[in-house]
């Protein structure tokens, strides 16, 4: 009986989600973080995601991340991450997938002789699982980045809580695995972000 009840809720959520397909809307989000590995360090993101481009299942997005600030403007470090993704569904469902390619541009303006940080550009491949329910939607992307001396994997699970048709709050956890191939070294790192998303 309980399972049947849950199934009914799931079905009603699915029907509801079909009616307000956010894949057909542009969206802008801002978020603030973060809780790093051992200490709190401020970061902010501004993200734009397009609707599905007409007659295709392709969506483009771009994320601007600024470091060392909760106010978006940083004098020292940014990441710019444009991404093109193919969606295997044109409507939102409880489970659907996307795959995409992009670039991760690290811009480092730090002027300190102790710093080894440099600006660079890396390719990025994204594989993502998405889902949508009445009030809640989620995404679970896996990003793979290639570097000249190694590779990194990042999972970025995000849960959105829809406030109304246009606005949502979300929380995102990011878990990074960084691996240097030669002179082998591995590092795990993590961040947590809280944000606001608006369909436009």
């Amino acid at each position, binding site marked *: 009986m309980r399972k049947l009840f849950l199934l009914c809720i799931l079905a009603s959520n699915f029907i509801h989600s079909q009616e307000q397909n956010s894949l057909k809307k542009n969206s802008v989000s801002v978020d603030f973080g973060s809780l790093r590995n*051992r200490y709190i360090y401020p970061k902010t993101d501004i993200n734009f995601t397009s609707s599905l481009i007409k007659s295709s299942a392709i969506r483009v997005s771009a994320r601007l991340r600024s470091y060392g600030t909760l106010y978006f403007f940083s004098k020292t470090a940014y990441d710019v991450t444009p991404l093109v993704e193919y969606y295997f569904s044109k409507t939102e469902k409880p489970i659907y997938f996307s795959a995409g390619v992009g670039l991760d541009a690290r811009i480092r303006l730090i002027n300190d002789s102790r710093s080894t940080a440099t600006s*660079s550009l890396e*390719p990025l491949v994204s594989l993502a699982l998405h889902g949508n329910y009445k009030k809640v939607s989620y995404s679970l992307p896996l990003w793979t980045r290639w570097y000249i001396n190694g590779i990194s994997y990042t999972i970025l699970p995000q849960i959105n809580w829809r406030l109304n048709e246009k606005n949502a709050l979300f929380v995102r956890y990011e878990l990074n695995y960084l691996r240097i191939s030669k002179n082998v070294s591995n590092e795990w790192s993590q961040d947590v972000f809280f944000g606001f998303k608006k369909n436009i």
Partner: protein
Amino acid sequence: MNTYFGLFYLMIFIVISACGKVPTSEPKQPIPSFVGDFENGNVSGFHYLVVDTTKNTQIVIYPVRKGKYALKNTLNPTDYTNNGYRTELAIYNCAFYKSEVYYAFSFYVDSNYSDYAYSLICQWQDLPYYVQGEVWEPSPKLHGSPPPIALIYVNETLELKMNDSPSTNTKTFLVGEPLKIEKGKWYDVVAHMYWNDDNTAFQEIWINNKPMTPFNGVDYKYHYRNLYNRTGNYFKFGQYRGKDKTEHTNIIYFDEVKIGSTYNEVAP
């Protein structure tokens, strides 16, 4: 066919567009030897955290530990710079992730030194994780704390203190026993460090050739994490009082500041 060409070009693009390094520190980076014995009659080779180099860091011919010259380090009650009361000299790029390094210096507390409150006479200070976008003084500043490891002159004793949390100043703890320090006498410090962000890290410290770190059953290595992140630390010596103003003008002399890869290379 076009799809295959597309995939081929995509793979080529992926391979050639990777131009940066993984944003984590490579282990075991080499550390160059350093000698700061002031025998050239000046304080070149250091980075300064002092108000006035002509008054706070003077070269003297008495007292000296070895050779002809030593450094007279003076901290006045008004010497506030870089967010603290200090007169410090720093050496950069000398404490990298997973490197094993020896540091040495000699110090001499002036017989007129009159304060009993704490003063850091040397510290291995943490750094922002630059390759992951971090910098000093983020806005807002959400963390700040004592260095991971420091030697502190307080109440006429020398204490070795470590810090467990990069987010607060309430997690410092004493390693070994405080050592009584006599004013007007030279003390030789040698520190053997293995830098890591886990508890395979160690610190082994001798004062006048006697271990200061506690015996662990095998040797005097005290195993405890000494990096907050993998950028590494940097070395500073002199006098540092944080936000706490010193009551009097205090003088400590330094000599034979060295960094190397063996005990014999750095010991005075």
